């Protein structure tokens, strides 16, 4: 297989391709700063993200990171600062897909926007950071990748400089982000203090020497959790999310709520499985850290779903729902200490993948609505299906899929998560509470998701609208996302395998 001939650093190709594309965009911009040739920029960005996707898929197929005779095993670079395994590739794929969808959609969304190139290059830089997060294997690289993701995101959220909403969103995102990263870094310093290392495997090996500094280490771990909770928009670090998602341009909301969340979770998965194996850590800090995630999961899904239930603004509802979904995924970490935990984590990863389609699609529909200028609330959406049946059908697909109703991809990920949680509950009964919370919340989510479907399909329009345009890019992205969401149901086998292998890669 051709992977052999490549030099090792090429293993990071998916991330590097994204970075390269970003630079190309800068170059193009510096050649002609006045240019607003959006087709060119968007095209380049899409090309870049797609190529990164292709490479990542090719690596996975080729068996990079997979163990076994004809596979190439895990590739680690720079003395273990980076590592490319199934987990990394899996998330690189998610990120690349979301980036592609978002960039395609942005083509129309940004039609009369002056800073085309910056926009796309920022997106791609953020994407690069996320891919790096997926691959980074030491707290240093993790922190750098984190910031590489965050800083462009701040700018992107606030990119509509004359739109108060966008600016306010940017501000809040930035302030909370800065605070969280400060906490994260302090946590890093504490962990370093306790173990004397920043490289994840070494941390794990040095845990025993950290004996007397158990408290410090515990505090450090907690602070790391905080930093990650910020990225994944989990309670109590979620406060930025509703505003940021609501204020930001819709494609950016899609990007952050899907890709950025996924990246945050890959960090969590890697750090907490590699650096702090439950048993060993528990000996040192005297408490099973999964407990923290149990609490976070329950609180997060409850806050997210309940707050979403009575929103009037569609985008904000989606924002809260994405918090709720963060709560679902957190179960993957909460169950780690239990037997069969890797399956739960695998299910969580599946959910992140499917979520990548359906949530992105949902936000892109909001982008379409903003493009039409029909308004932001449920009432404004009333009866859209009369004018745009296909887009609305796609939106219905996203909503039902988010609610976990078959025949859409969301069903599998959600119910497999549910299933595996129950399975793990055999070993750790507290997870039953999680399962119960899952039931209650998904019932509630059903209510507000179907509320949007009701607005689109059942309600009569309040005021007469004239014909609605059909922007190619947005439509393409939305339909693509919808098709993926539907197709992934019958074709869920490979997804499940990939996710489970990815989980197996870190949970040894």
């Amino acid at each position: 297989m051709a992977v052999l001939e490549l030099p090792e650093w090429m293993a990071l190709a998916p991330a590097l391709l994204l970075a390269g594309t970003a630079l190309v965009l800068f170059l193009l911009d510096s050649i002609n700063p006045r240019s607003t040739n959006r087709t060119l920029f968007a095209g380049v960005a899409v090309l870049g993200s797609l190529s990164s996707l292709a490479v990542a898929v090719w690596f996975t197929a080729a068996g990079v990171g997979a163990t076994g005779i004809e596979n190439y095993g895990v590739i680690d670079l720079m003395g273990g600062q980076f590592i490319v395994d199934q987990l990394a590739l899996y998330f690189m794929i998610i990120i690349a897909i979301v980036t592609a969808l978002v960039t395609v959609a942005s083509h129309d969304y940004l039609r009369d926007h002056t800073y085309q190139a910056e926009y796309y290059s920022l997106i791609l830089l953020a994407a690069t950071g996320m891919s790096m997060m997926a691959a980074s294997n030491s707290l240093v690289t993790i922190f750098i990748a984190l910031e590489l993701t965050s800083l462009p995101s701040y700018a992107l959220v606030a990119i509509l400089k004359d739109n108060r909403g966008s600016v306010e969103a940017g501000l809040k995102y930035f302030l909370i982000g800065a605070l969280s990263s400060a906490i994260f870094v302090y946590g890093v310093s504490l962990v370093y203090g306790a173990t004397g290392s920043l490289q994840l495997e070494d941390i794990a090996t040095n845990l025993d020497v950290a004996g007397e500094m158990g408290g410090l280490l515990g505090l450090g771990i907690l602070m790391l959790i905080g930093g990650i909770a910020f990225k994944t928009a989990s309670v109590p670090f979620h406060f930025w999310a509703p505003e940021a998602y609501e204020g930001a341009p819709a494609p950016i909301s899609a990007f952050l709520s899907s890709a950025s969340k996924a990246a945050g979770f890959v960090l969590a998965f890697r750090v907490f499985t590699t650096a702090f194996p439950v048993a060993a850590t528990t000996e040192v800090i005297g408490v099973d850290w999964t407990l923290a995630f149990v609490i976070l999961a329950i609180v997060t899904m409850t806050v997210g779903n309940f707050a979403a239930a009575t929103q009037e603004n569609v985008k904000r509802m989606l924002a809260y729902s994405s918090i709720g979904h963060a709560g679902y995924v957190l179960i993957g970490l909460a169950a780690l200490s239990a037997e069969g935990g890797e399956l739960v984590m695998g299910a969580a990863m599946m959910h992140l993948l499917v979520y990548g389609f359906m949530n992105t699609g949902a936000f892109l529909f909001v982008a379409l609505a903003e493009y039409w200028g029909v308004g932001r609330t449920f009432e404004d959406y009333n009866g859209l299906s009369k004018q745009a049946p296909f887009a609305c059908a796609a939106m219905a697909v996203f909503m039902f899929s988010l609610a976990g109703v078959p025949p859409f991809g969301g069903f599998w990920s959600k119910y497999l998560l549910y299933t595996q949680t129950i399975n793990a509950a055999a070993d750790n009964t507290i997870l039953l509470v999680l399962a119960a919370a899952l039931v209650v919340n998904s019932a509630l989510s059903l209510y507000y998701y179907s509320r949007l479907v009701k607005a689109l399909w059942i309600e009569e329009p309040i005021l007469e609208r004239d014909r609605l345009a059909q922007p190619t890019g947005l439509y393409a992205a939305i339909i693509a996302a919808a098709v993926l969401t539907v197709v992934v149901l019958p074709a869920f086998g490979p997804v499940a395998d990939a996710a489970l292998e990815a989980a197996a890669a870190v949970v040894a």
Partner: protein
Amino acid sequence: MMIEALIAVALLGALVTFVAPNRIAGKLAFAISLVPAALSLWLFAAFDGSGNALRGGELAFESQAAWIEIGEYSISWFVGLDGISLPLVVLTTILCTLAIVSSWTPIDERESQFYGLILFIEANLIGVFSALDFFLWFVFWEAVLIPMYLLIGIWGGPRRKYAAIKFFVYTNVASLVMFGAFIALVFGLGDSVTSFALPEIAGAMLDGGPEGFFGLEGTTLASVVFVAMFLGFAVKVPIVPFHTWLPDAHVEAPTPASVLLAGVLLKMGTYALLRFNFTMFPEQVEMYAVPIAAIAVISVIYGAMLALAQTDLKRIVAYSSVSSMGYVILGLVAYTQFGVGGATFQMVSHGLISGLMFMAVGVIYNATHTRMVTDMSGLADRMPIAVGILIAGAFGYMGLPLMSGFYGEFTIFFGAFGSDLLDYSPLFTAAAMFGIVIVAGYLLFALQRTVFGPYRLETDYEVGRAPLHDIAPMVVLLGLIILLGVAPDLIFDMITDAIDPIIQYGGDL
């Protein structure tokens, strides 16, 4: 691959219809729906299965393909028919075709979407009755909700939004509970099962049952799961006191949706009860026989009493469905060949009869634009044929001999009366049987007020005879009802053949 063909035709048909222009959608959907109907009839003719699908019976048209591997467990595409599911599949395809025809008159906006959804629901219903892998079954089971939600919501009556969301959320919560319980059971069974294929699980339940799960004894777990699943299905059936979504949904839903709702969707619940609770848990059935029978009797009497208090024809029929489903539960818990067989027969029979009733009410509504018993009088004067059929349907509902309803009820009563498993079975049976008096009461009251007496209806338009394409489906249904009433063994033989393996354990055979 026949079943796949059935489902595929319906699904593709749904897509085609969805994009077809509105004016041809109805006819197109009808043409498409004829294919599954014909196919299913062919399946009926060519049926070569024997025994029960979950008890190692000989499956007809079986096909299985690996789908998803998760942990040690494998999920697969696994479909097949036995004597219980085949009649229900045929019922589904036929009712869908007739429902499509019966909606030509009432549905006058967004036709293509409407008929697309009907075909979509048909595909899923076929799936529900033929799937033999838990996850596959659950996919179809849940997927039915979406089209029904939209059918009620878009084409429904004034309170349609409330009804639609209520139906959607209520039934879905029930499914979640049931799902969790069953999953716990599967994991509780331990290494003896490695897939979610129902036959395997049923087999494992027989030899040994669950080893226990999160600290519960095996038998305790089984009981907990049994109860949880029973509650989950009770909402779908529905059984008192989980029935309140039904009247709302029925009253608001457009006629064809009501036909499918009462005709097939309610049967999903009883079918699932039979497949899961009453097949996999013989011991628990015996343990909980008396309470379940009590609930059944309450459903019968209470539902009938509620129907007696209604003045909206659709509400009357809706509540009487609750009542009829009570009979089915009684038959199931009797756990005798006639009891369970009669219950299964009653599923089909009630599907036909309630479908007929809703169609007749719909036809009257099309003509009079009202369903209120108090608003109309002497309709027989203006629309004799439709009214004649309505009366026939009503008597079918009352269990008139030589119509399928009587056979279903009689066999249930007979099977329940002599049941060894159920204590005080004669008392329960006699109590439930009193339903046949109340049902006569409210139906005859309704008939007397609406179709008889001097013609009186405040309308500014002419109330005339119903068009042929409204009458035809009802005639077909009536024919089937009488056919099954005179020659029940057409399906009863295959049903009992599939029932016997179930009731060998615990039941008396």
